[in-house]
């Protein structure tokens, strides 16, 4: 993959992230953190490839460990964020679901 394109994507994504997150109100900062934490578990995608390739045993072992830890991050992160957000309710808005 062309190095410059990767760097380009990286820089643009950082700027996009800054624009997106700047608009999140402080009341949602904890769910934002746990939710973005779940997104950082995207490493799972890379880990799957390492874990599943049988050419290199050492890399596979590292891959499986990475899969396990990244999955904790993904599953736990999304679930706990959902649990938190389910509790946020507006004043007169019933149960807010």
């Amino acid at each position, binding site marked *: 993959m062309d190095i410059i394109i990767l760097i380009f994507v990286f820089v643009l994504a950082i700027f996009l*992230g800054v624009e997106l997150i700047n608009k999140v109100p402080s009341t949602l900062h*904890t769910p934002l953190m746990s*939710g973005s*934490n779940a997104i950082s578990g995207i*490493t799972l995608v890379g880990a799957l490839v390492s874990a599943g390739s049988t050419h290199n045993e050492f*890399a*596979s072992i590292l*891959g499986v*460990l990475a899969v396990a830890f990244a999955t904790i991050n993904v599953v736990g992160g999304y679930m706990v964020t959902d649990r938190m957000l389910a509790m946020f309710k507006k004043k007169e808005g019933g149960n807010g679901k």
Partner: protein
Amino acid sequence: MNIDDTLINLVYVAAAVLFILGLKLLGSPATARKGNLISAVGMLIAVVVTLGNQQILSFELIAVGVAVGALVGAIVSRKVAMTSMPEMVALFNGFGGLASLFVGWAALSVALVAALRSGVAVDNFSLVTIFLSILIGGLTFTGSLLAYGKLSEKISGRAFVYSGQRIVNSGILLAVLVCAALFFQDSANDNWLYLAVGLSLMLGVMFVLPIGGADMPVVISLLNSFSGLAAAAAGFAIGNILLIVAGSLVGASGIILTSIMCKAMNRSLTNVLFSGFGTVKVSAGPVIEQGEVKPMSAEDAYYVLEAAASVVIIPGYGMAVAQAQHAVKELQGMLEKNGAEVVYAIHPVAGRMPGHMNVLLAEADVPYDLLLEMDQVNPRMDSFDVAIVIGANDVVNPAAREVESSPIYGMPVINADQARTVFVLKRSMATGFAGIDNPLFFKENTRMLFGDAKATLGSLVKSFD
């Protein structure tokens, strides 16, 4: 099943769009839950399509890894108490960092084997990005574990400062780079690699060690950012654009939260990272204005509250410790039944992570539109009959405005002292996490309600019955 690489990448684009939409919807409490779900769908399709990658030949190990991870993640996320959210997020950050370290290391191993076969050395860009993912992943892991230990009070939460830590940390970082450079020269010598991994892990510890107490919200935000950057670095290492995009989004999010937290404490990031708050020696000079502390019983406080038309509640970490959020909500209900207006004033660094108080109050069914930010409350503070400070200390300390020699001078605070009457619910007269005297306790209009916050609130609620 083998899926074409182009198709996989197209699905990755869709996943990236879903992450972005998800984060966008997180911008409002009304749509946030949907946003989180959309982001999770993005993750799911990315994972599923990756399983079609031609390089994946064996699925047994993957199944084991996913099963273990999903089980642990599901159990932890269900069991964790809302008060313990900061340490859980810290722990998850660490796991993300560790996963990135492993992915980087695995990529290195694969690249070296390939280089050995083909006789063509691994290119420098791959080596550099692989080492970056190992470095950032490693320090995120140990830094987060230490933060977890501090937040869950398994180890002392105090800052541990020694002279020259800047030099030591820079030295470790430099040593990692030297190891990387030596490894580039002679990639047959694994020792340089192990040394680099070890030093990265050590750097995480040394980096979080001098930070403690009230600075923890900054640390978690920063580690959150690192966990994203580690994923992005791993993305560079294995040439996966989705990892880069998602990782940078998280990295950016953490950077913003970090800067918000720093601003809320009127300190620079370097100041937080290196100067160890709460270890500053405060001169005993300017506390002359201290008068007498005026304690008050819950009964007497009730008479004041009964006559109040507007009440502002200012929670702090002490509310979390006392698990008093439900009692607070009960008191709110009683006051409202009595015809009073009740709002909450939330300081950005109240608690141990950004938004900590908001989640606790949401758990207790407090509507989020009653939770006001500091800047919304301060201009009308003098219109409140009563301000009830529950387990907050430094964030309502008027010394930040009045005492120039105070270490927190200049920090934006909630001006609780400007309300007509201030009730401070406090266990004892001990100083806050920052260890600074609080003139608020000695003001003419302040009354101290000593004791466990939950018990005090309980007896106030009972008085209303």
